[in-house]
């Protein structure tokens, strides 16, 4: 028994020692991303490896890590040696930049605000839209239950919240108090606040709770594809938000590991027509106009506000105003009389 164990151990050691030289030669990239991009980056990584010179010799290895956007950013801050980060919102990469791992102007280094793909927020409703939900206004009706994750813990939910805010603002001619009231009434219709976007999808789809799910467009398409178009419909509201999930090279890590060129090439590849095709096929809106035109029928035309528009003033300001301590989201749940 003992000798068997020992020989197993020896074999393991041998395996590690023998592998070491080949590992040292192979180039490895670690892409730290957020939750719903699993399928997207699996396809993109394959395409990147095939077209890269080192890829043919099996010397290129791209590892993926997925999780809630904020949690992923914290892992990188705490020492996860990501070569590139591809997160749900710029605020999370800003947080990494604040710790000095990459320059603060990172978002200007790549085209389109460093966002090779975008998405927006749509409604996923039960088949046939039994509650007749057409636009944001319908979601604050007394007979409707809305499912969204908690903006405090989910990047996707922050886009949901801001989209609702933008609608409330536009409808009331820019009156902030009325916008706040609108969002507040919307959240009173929320029976469950999950911590992440996937959790909310599960609550809506598997548990049968709620009449409408506020979701990333790509998640809504995925739910439709995975669960059958006979169960759900997608409703596009009159106004939504342009969600820009940005990408960046983490300078401190690539300089330490000597992978800067590869990491840079990897992110630039995301903007090539080939990668843009893959992006569109995975239901993200491509940045490339040519590709976008070809897939235009897939992505309904909707009026989109942007996070950098004056009503939000960029992520730093929006985060502080809406999701920070005592921000507009906290005020919704503050007990009356305070």
């Amino acid at each position: 028994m003992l000798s068997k164990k020992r020989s197993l151990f020896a074999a393991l050691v041998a395996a590690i020692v023998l592998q070491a030289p080949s590992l040292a030669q192979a180039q490895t990239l670690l892409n730290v991303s957020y939750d719903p991009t699993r399928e997207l980056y699996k396809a993109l990584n394959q395409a990147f490896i095939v077209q890269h010179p080192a890829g043919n010799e099996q010397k290129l290895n791209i590892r993926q890590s997925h999780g809630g956007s904020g949690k992923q950013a914290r892992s990188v801050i705490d020492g996860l040696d990501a070569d590139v980060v591809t997160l749900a919102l710029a605020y999370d990469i800003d947080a990494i930049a604040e710790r000095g791992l990459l320059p603060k102007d990172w978002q200007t280094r790549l085209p389109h605000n460093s966002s090779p793909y975008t998405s927006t927020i749509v409604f996923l409703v039960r088949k046939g839209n039994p509650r007749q939900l057409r636009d944001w206004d319908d979601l604050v009706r007394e007979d409707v239950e809305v499912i969204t994750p908690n903006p405090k813990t989910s990047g996707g939910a922050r886009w949901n919240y801001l989209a609702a805010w933008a609608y409330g603002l536009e409808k009331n001619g820019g009156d902030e108090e009325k916008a706040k009231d609108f969002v507040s009434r919307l959240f009173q219709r929320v029976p469950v606040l999950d911590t992440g976007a996937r959790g909310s999808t599960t609550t809506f789809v598997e548990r049968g709770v709620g009449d409408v799910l506020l979701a990333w467009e790509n998640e809504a398409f995925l739910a439709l594809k995975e669960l059958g178009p006979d169960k759900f419909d997608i409703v596009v509201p009159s106004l939504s938000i342009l969600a820009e999930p940005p990408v960046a090279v983490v300078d401190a890590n690539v300089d330490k590991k000597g992978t800067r060129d590869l990491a840079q090439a990897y992110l630039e590849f995301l903007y090539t027509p080939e990668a843009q095709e893959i992006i569109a096929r995975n239901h993200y809106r491509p940045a490339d106009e040519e590709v976008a035109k070809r897939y235009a029928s897939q992505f309904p035309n909707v009026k989109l506000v942007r996070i950098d528009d004056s009503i939000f003033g960029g992520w730093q300001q929006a985060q502080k105003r809406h999701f920070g301590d005592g921000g507009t989201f906290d005020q919704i749940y503050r007990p009356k009389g305070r």
Partner: protein
Amino acid sequence: MSLAFSSKVLSGRRATGRRRPGVLPGFGLGTGYAVFYLSLLVLIPLTTLPLKTLELGWGGFWSVVLDPRVVASYKLSFGAALAAAGVNAVFGLIVAWVLVRYTFPGRKLVDALIDLPFALPTAVAGIALTALYARNGWLGGPLETLFGLKVAFTPLGIVVALIFIGTPFVVRSVQPVLEDLEQEFEEAAASLGATRWATVRRVILPAIFPSLLTGFALAFARGVGEYGSVVFIAGNMPMISEITPLLILSRLEQYDYAGAAAIATVMLGLSFVLLLIINALQAWQGHDKRRSA
């Protein structure tokens, strides 16, 4: 040399007078090791928590930990954990009793089942319970239509999850003590004219009470800190079904490490005080028994 010194310091009372060697050898080495080990694994990680909160300053600390939402979450976390531990104490005791005192086919199987909540990743438990108690689940549907009782996505759901998670603690604490309790005691009590209830109350319960309390404390402590299973079933509505660990997490999501540490410190303090009380109760109970014996 340093070892002898540390043992002198640690043994306190003994260091003042002549050193009388104890009956068991290795006191210095054993205690030194225990303290070193506990420091490394428990004390040092925990002291970093209050240290982290220093960034906030006194006023900042209080405004974070006394926020109405945070206060509501303490009530919920500790209340639900106490309720769940209470339920577990009663029913865990019955389960342990059945497993020890009766033989029936499949007993070993039931015995093995008890440990499953230990082994299962808590997220799996949470998802399974939510599926079961949701409106479209096997139990959730009938409960809601027949009794108007909502379990999933309410504070009640949290208690249900904590009962599940805490089940093994009481059973496994009480079981060995019950096994050691000779049935002769009960026979003697009966032959001396005690009623059945008097036997249970005055013979069996005093003997197993300390272990029951241990099981209760363990189940409670586990429930207070539980996150994985609860977030799925709780609904996480602010002021209603938001547990303290979730608020700590949402502070972290905002990169507010100090705020997260502040809430964690309060939780740590409250848990420590409650466990201390339970331990004191146990000591008092043991003392009482020895005196009456």
